[in-house]
Each structure stands twice: as structure tokens, then as C-alpha cells.
């Protein structure tokens, strides 16, 4: 059942639309220090921070681009002064963005930027059956979860990235930020090539078959990288598309199947007849399809007929489960993307990091809202929200306000990620230094 997502439980006085609420959040809860270290990758402010663009949204629609800051203190000061409803992170330029007017226009050039991805539920409207538009529930989140798993695996195993941060976008999508040094310095061309590699599902509303990745050879194998992804999502396809979402129920579902599968007329007609009575589930249909495949295979596992058919079932699974990324976001260094830990203005929810190993169980509606967090802060200090490991109340004095709120596990997760990024950054620098020393001999 679709669960609508109004900004539930936010009392009027704690609405994300209220400037006082936002200001209280920025003053007491936003994790400035790990945020700075995440972008800067070391303690001393470097170009990664000082030459970085921040874009603020003020009020409903005023957009202020090209802010940049010398250090995290300046950044915080400005956030508290301007009190943006949200802000976005851009690239590192060759010139400090706020000084851009002091140089000729064409001189300003984005140089570095985390590699980012954006997956949005609206791209799944044609495959999900539970909700549509801006709504999202636990059930359709399954598509996002499957996408995250595949993309995460492919970015790590194939492309060799290590430092991926997945961040819930506060409403119906998820972002990924990759902070590896060589991800930062990818050119737009290189980013585009990677995105094109990952764009397996392609085509608008009018295109029925959206997966065409065999270079026109419909009996050929999949590129092994996609094949690996397929292995990862097969089980999710059964669990989510067939069983939970029941994507191929009714006549419309039947027609979708028949349009995507490579079967002859007679078989198609016989299925159509068989499935015409209502109550034949997607799972029933799929079993029929599989046993037909098994028959073809018996007749000849290398026959073109079988290969064609089995390829078409693979393509169908990819079409339903392979990540549908918003390609434009990833292709260019100068694309702005909403920062982690800002508040989604519509839902009031915090954009929190998500752990990939737990993404299946992630509950978007359980992400804390700014109102909830401020209420938790309002609770008397003697009753902290956070328990120690042994279940006892933490005896020590809490250093930060957020530790008393349900934001804590998310910030802990973030800090763990940041520590790893910084460690690698340090090691990379050491290697450079060592090689310099050895050159001096």
C-alpha cells in the first residue's frame, strides 16, 4: 500500500519551512567538522575546500552561486548568517569562486570534483506499481536498494573506487559521492565514458525495449561487467518485480512481457490465452516462461533460438532492476549536487548517509526530520537518547548536541567514512614525498 509522505509529525513550530528551525539546526546539529574534512581530505584547509563552490538557496527560490570560504569557521559563520533553506556542493575551480570576477570570464574553470551519482525514484514510475510521482514507500525503495547494490559493486570491483558515500536525498532518491583522488581528477570526457558504460537502461516513454547492450548481436553474450551485475539482481528481480510489485499482473503485464521476450507468434498467442483469466500472478507467468526456456535449451543450448530467447529474458531483468541513473548529474564536473546533512525542504528529513550493506532494510520514512531532532534536543539532558553499548546511560558528558539525538548513528557512519578518506589521502601524499626524497639522492 502506498504510504504518502507528508512531513509527518512536524509540529508547526518545528517545520523545515521556518527560518528559526533551520537556524537552530545549523547552530546545534550540522556536523561542520567531519563535513569540512570530508571535502578537504586533510586538516589544513587546501584548495579542495578554499576553491570549492557552494551554492545557497535562500528562502523559496533565491539562488546564490559561487560562494567559497577560507576555512570551516568562515563557512559556518556564513551559513548561520545567510541561513539557507538548502545548499549544494560544486567543483573545485582553478580560481577561488568568489574571486571569479577578478579574472577574465573564460579563465574560471572547474578542475576537480567528486564523482557523483543520482538515482531518483521518478525514473522507476513505469516499473513500480505501489506509488508514483513524489511518493515513495518501503516497497518501491526496493528498486533503489537493488540499484545501489549493483552500482556500488560495479564502481568498486570494476572501476576500482574505494571511498563511496551513499546519501539519502531526503525524499525519493539517493546520491553517491566518490572521494578517491583519481575520481576527483577525472575529466568530463572520462566521466562521460563511465556514465555511458553504466547507462544500460536507455530510452524514453515511447521505447518499449530499453536495454540494447549487445551491439546489435542478439545472440551474443553480455559484456562481462553487465553479466556480473545481472547475477547480483536476479534474486531481487524475483523478490521485488515478480513477487512484491507483481509487475506483470493483468493484461497490461502480459503485453509488456510479450513485447520484450523473443518468442514466436504461436507461443505468444498460447500464453495470451492461458493468462487471460485474471489471477495469474507475475510469478506464475515467469515460471511458464522459464520452463519454456528450459525446453528450448534441451533442444539445443547453442541454438540461436535458445540464445535469443534467453538473452531477451536477461535484458528484461536488466530493464527492471539495473540502476537507472540520472546521467547528466555525473557527466560534468560543474554539476551542483545537494550536500549531505542538509534538510529536504519538502519533507523536513535530513539527507543522511546510508550503509550499503543495510540498504535493503533502509526505511526512508524513518529518517529523522529536523523537527524531531530539535524535539529530542529539547528533552531534559538527564534522559539522553543514546545508550552506551552495555545499555547503560552514557556517563560522560556529551561533547556535541547531536549525540543526544537520533542523528548520531548517521554522523558516526559519516565520520568513519571521512577517516578512511583522510587516511588514504595521507598515504598518497607520503608516497609522493618519499619518491621526492629518493630523487634527491
Amino acid at each position, binding site marked *: 500500500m502506498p504510504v504518502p509522505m507528508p512531513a509527518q509529525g512536524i509540529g508547526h513550530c518545528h517545520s523545515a519551512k521556518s527560518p528559526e528551525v533551520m537556524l537552530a539546526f545549523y547552530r546545534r546539529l550540522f556536523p561542520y567538522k567531519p563535513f569540512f574534512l570530508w571535502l578537504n581530505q586533510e586538516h589544513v584547509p587546501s584548495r579542495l575546500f578554499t576553491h570549492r563552490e557552494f551554492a545557497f538557496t535562500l528562502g523559496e527560490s533565491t539562488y546564490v552561486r559561487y560562494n567559497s570560504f577560507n576555512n570551516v569557521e568562515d563557512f559556518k559563520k556564513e551559513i548561520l548568517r545567510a541561513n539557507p533553506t538548502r545548499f549544494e556542493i560544486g567543483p573545485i575551480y582553478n580560481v577561488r569562486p568568489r574571486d571569479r570576477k577578478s579574472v577574465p570570464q*573564460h579563465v574560471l574553470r572547474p578542475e576537480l570534483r567528486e564523482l557523483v551519482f543520482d538515482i531518483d525514484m521518478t525514473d522507476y514510475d513505469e516499473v513500480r506499481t505501489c506509488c508514483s510521482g513524489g511518493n515513495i514507500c518501503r516497497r518501491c525503495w526496493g528498486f533503489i536498494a537493488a540499484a545501489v547494490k549493483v552500482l556500488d559493486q560495479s564502481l568498486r*570491483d*570494476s*572501476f*576500482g*573506487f574505494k571511498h563511496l558515500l551513499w546519501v539519502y536525498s531526503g525524499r525519493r532518491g539517493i546520491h553517491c559521492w566518490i572521494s578517491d*583522488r*583519481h575520481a576527483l*581528477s*577525472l*575529466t568530463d*570526457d*572520462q566521466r*562521460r*565514458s*563511465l556514465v*555511458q*558504460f553504466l547507462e544500460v537502461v536507455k530510452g524514453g516513454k515511447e521505447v518499449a525495449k530499453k536495454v540494447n*547492450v549487445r*551491439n546489435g*548481436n542478439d545472440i*551474443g*553474450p*553480455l*559484456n*562481462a*561487467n*553487465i*553479466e556480473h551485475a545481472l547475477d547480483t539482481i536476479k534474486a531481487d528481480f524475483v523478490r521485488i518485480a515478480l513477487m512484491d510489485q507483481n509487475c506483470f499482473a493483468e493484461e497490461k503485464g502480459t503485453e509488456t512481457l510479450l513485447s520484450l521476450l523473443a518468442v514466436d507468434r504461436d507461443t505468444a498467442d498460447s500464453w495470451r490465452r492461458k493468462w487471460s483469466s485474471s489471477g495469474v500472478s507475475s510469478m506464475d507467468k515467469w515460471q511458464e516462461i522459464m520452463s519454456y526456456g528450459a525446453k528450448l535449451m534441451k533442444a539445443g543450448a547453442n541454438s540461436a533460438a535458445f540464445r535469443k530467447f534467453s538473452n531477451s529474458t536477461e535484458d528484461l531483468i536488466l530493464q527492471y532492476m539495473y540502476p537507472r541513473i540520472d546521467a547528466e548529474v555525473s557527466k560534468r564536473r560543474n554539476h551542483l549536487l545537494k550536500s549531505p546533512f542538509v534538510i529536504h525542504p519538502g519533507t523536513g528529513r535530513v539527507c543522511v548517509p546510508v550503509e550499503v550493506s543495510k540498504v535493503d532494510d533502509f526505511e526512508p520514512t524513518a529518517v529523522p526530520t529536523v523537527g524531531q531532532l530539535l524535539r529530542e534536543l529539547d528533552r531534559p539532558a538527564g534522559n539522553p537518547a543514546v545508550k552506551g553499548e552495555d545499555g547503560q546511560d552514557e556517563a560522560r558528558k556529551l561533547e556535541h548536541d547531536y549525540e543526544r539525538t537520533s542523528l548520531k548513528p548517521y554522523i558516526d557512519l559519516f565520520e568513519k567514512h571521512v577517516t578512511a578518506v583522510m587516511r588514504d589521502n595521507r598515504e598518497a601524499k607520503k608516497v609522493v614525498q618519499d619518491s621526492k626524497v629518493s630523487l634527491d639522492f
Partner: protein
Amino acid sequence: MFKATSRNPQAGPSSRPGSGLGSNPEVKINRRLSGSGPSSRYPYRLNFYERPPTMDITLEEFEIFAISRLKVLTQIHALLDRSLPPQQYRELLSSTVKQHAALSSNTARNVRLDEERRRDEVGHWVLRLAFCRSPDLREKFIKTESELFRWRFETDDAVEKQEWLKSLRFDWVTVDQAEKSLLLKNLASCLPKNANESQVMGDHYVKVPWYTVPDLVSTRRVYITGGNAYVPQAYQISLVLQAFRERLGKALEMTAKSLPRMDEDDRLMPILSHLSLSFLTNISANDNNFFGEQDPNSEKVTADMVDALAVKHFPACQYNLWRRLKRDRHLKHYGRLQFGLFLKALGLPLDEALVYWRRGYGQTMSDDKFNKEYKYNIRHSYGQEGKRTNYPAKSCQQILTGAQPGAQDSHGCPYRHFAPEQLQQLLVEAYPVIQVGSLELREVMDSVKKTHYHVACTRVFELTHPGNVKKGEGIGGGNMVNHPNEYYNKSLEYEKESKGMAEPMQTD
């Protein structure tokens, strides 16, 4: 981190271009025994241009070598833009390269290899100096140079190519048999149709960071794991090209930084500016000024003939001036100059020119005024007055980049200086085969929109000479229009050819 680095000691930063040419004190003695055979300076046909030329270069060579290379690059740029069928593209490219930038392999006979290769090298380096100055120029230069390089790489002798690759010592890791058999299925899955696993074992694979071969990644032609792309032999050109582009890109930026020092050399700067201006306007620089003289081969043209020639053979710019003069009985200064020199170059002698212009102005001007003011100017442009300079007719480049026409002016290049509606009007009026709303006209207007004015003009030439040139052949041999008189001469030539062919058929 992103470049396929070379361990070649000669490629180190110390030997990177300083001020460009001749900054390297190294002296090489060519162990050349006869007029042919590769020398130690140019052991291979292919060249990454890592070392600036060290020999003395005369100013004349400086310019000539650069201009002939520029011709090739502008041609490549135009060809890339025209989305021709691959076969035709290759043919046209091949003929231009042969004509202006031939490079023979070591086994070639009767060729002065060293001379060819020196030409190639100097040309490349001069253009580097000319084109390092703006991001636009750099981008265009890299694009066209790598296309030229690609073509040469693909046409190179297989053995020499391997030797050359070896000499560069790329940091490519060869994938050994054990790893190949481990990844067998994965590697085979990326091969084109009908390839099989045994092919993988027999092939020479290298592994490189995936981002060094973006074109192979985007088309999923490689297997990628652990950040590495596994590249079979057939695709290694991608790697070489990527390295070529990257090194050239970096070198150009460095040259740009050191260029200001060269500004003092006032012999070189005018040449360099001229070259870069040509490149920006997509026109190859003109190395000949034979249009200054009347072409001795051209037949005598009389005032009476001009109208007939105009409708048949004039490019848009001159057609426009011709009809303006007819309609308004007047042309402003630059228009008179542009049209007058054009007429002179196509063979209208001074006495006929005086007749033509006198008639052209008609009753709007008294004989007295004509004789006093205009006659002198016409004689002057024929080198009969004043300094007695024989002025050459204006080239497309001069027309495109010279004085911009003001509100009352009619000179310039219509493709560049007209509003789209006016241009379309002019074209359908001047060239009846071009129809309003036709696909062809749209194609021409597209080129105009992309600021490829000479491509548009060349396309019109093709359209108006359907029996003589096919699409892509330009004014012949794939050449672009780059001088109005060239346009005219070619048009006339084709007319004669067609007639010559038609006549014998009439005799029974």
C-alpha cells in the same frame, strides 16, 4: 596520474619545449649516408613531437612548412564536420595528406625521408606556437592533429609501428597467459561478433587504468576490473591517441605560458597571428598571390561578358556585389575594392574595367565625376597609378576577417555577414537549383549556424555543379573554397569540361 606515462628519458620535462623552437642545445649529427633512409633523428615515420627541432630553420621554411600543414588541418576539420561515409572520408583525407603532408615509411624508395620528416616536424612545431594561445585554438589543434596522427598510425607499416610503439615505452602492462586464461570468459565477452575464446589467448592484451581509454569504456568494448581496462591489440590505437592528445594538450599549455617571451621577435609574430586567424576562420592560409597578376591562362574577358559570367560562376559574395551595382548603380568603397579586384583577377583588363564600371554607374554619375574620382581608383587598383602596386584580389580569409560591412556596405561574405533570411533570399536568387525550404538549403544554413562559412560556400558550389563534383568533393579533390577567384576558375573549368564532353557526342 592520468596519462600513459612514458619512461623514455627524452620525454622528461627537461626536454619539453621551452620557448619552443631551437631551445634545446642538443646537437645531433645525422648519420645519413645517402639521400634516403631514416636517420638517427627520425628513425620512425610516426612522431609524438616530444623534442623541439634543433636545426636552423629559415624564416621561409618556417612559414611554408606551417602553411602546408595548416592546409591539412583545416581540411581535416572540415571533413570531420561533414559526417561523410567512412569510405569517402578516408579517400578525401588520404588525398589531402598525400598532397600536403606526405610521410613515407622507412622502406620507401626514392624519397628523402629526412627531408619529409623534418618538414613534418617543423610544421607541427610552428603551428603549436601559433595555436597555443587560446583554449579554442588549442582544442581545435589537438582534435585535428590527433586525427592526422590516427590516419598515419593506421596506415603505417605494421612492423615499423610495433618498433615505434616499443621505442615509446609506454607504461602498459602486458597481460600474461595465466591471467588471460583466468579471465578468459570475461575477455571474450567483450570481443565483437563471432570472435571466440581462442582468439583471446592468441591476442596481445595490455591492461591500463580505465580512464585512459574513455572511448573504449563508453562503448563497452573492454572488460574492466579493479580499475583496469583490458585492451586487445586491435584497440591499442585508442591508447596511443589518448597519450598523444594528453601530451599535446599539456605541451600546448606550457608553450602558451612561455610564448610572451617570443612576442619580441617581430619577424615571427605576424606569421603566427596570420596562421591562427586562418585557423579560427576555418580557412587555410593562402600561400600564393598569383591573383595579384592576371592569370595568364585566363582568357580575355570583356565588359559585355560580365553579366553572363556572374549568373553562372560567381560565388555569393561577388554575385551580391554584382547585383547591388546593377540595382543601386553604386557601390561603397570596400565593395568597389572587393569586386574590382575580383574582376581584375578573373581577366577583365583595365580598359574593359573602365567600360564596365562606367556603365555600371550609369546615369547616376556624370562623366566628369567618374573620370575624376573613379577612373583614378580603378587605374590605381590595376597598378597604374600611385605606388603602382599590383593589388591581389581578396581571399576568403581576408573577406571574412577584414573590414566588417556597415549598414550601407555590400562587401564581405554573405555567409558570414548576412542575416539568415537575407542569405537564403540571395542564395535562391543567385542559384536557381537551390529551392526554398529544401533539405540542401537547410544543410547550408546549418553550416552557417556553426560558423563554417566556407563549408557552406563549398556546399553551394557542389550543389550548383552536380555533374562535376559530388557531395564531399568540394570544388574538386575535396578542396574547400578559399578564394572567390578559385571558385570562379573552377566553375568555369567545369563548364568547359562539360562542354568538351558534350560536343563530340553531337557529331554523329
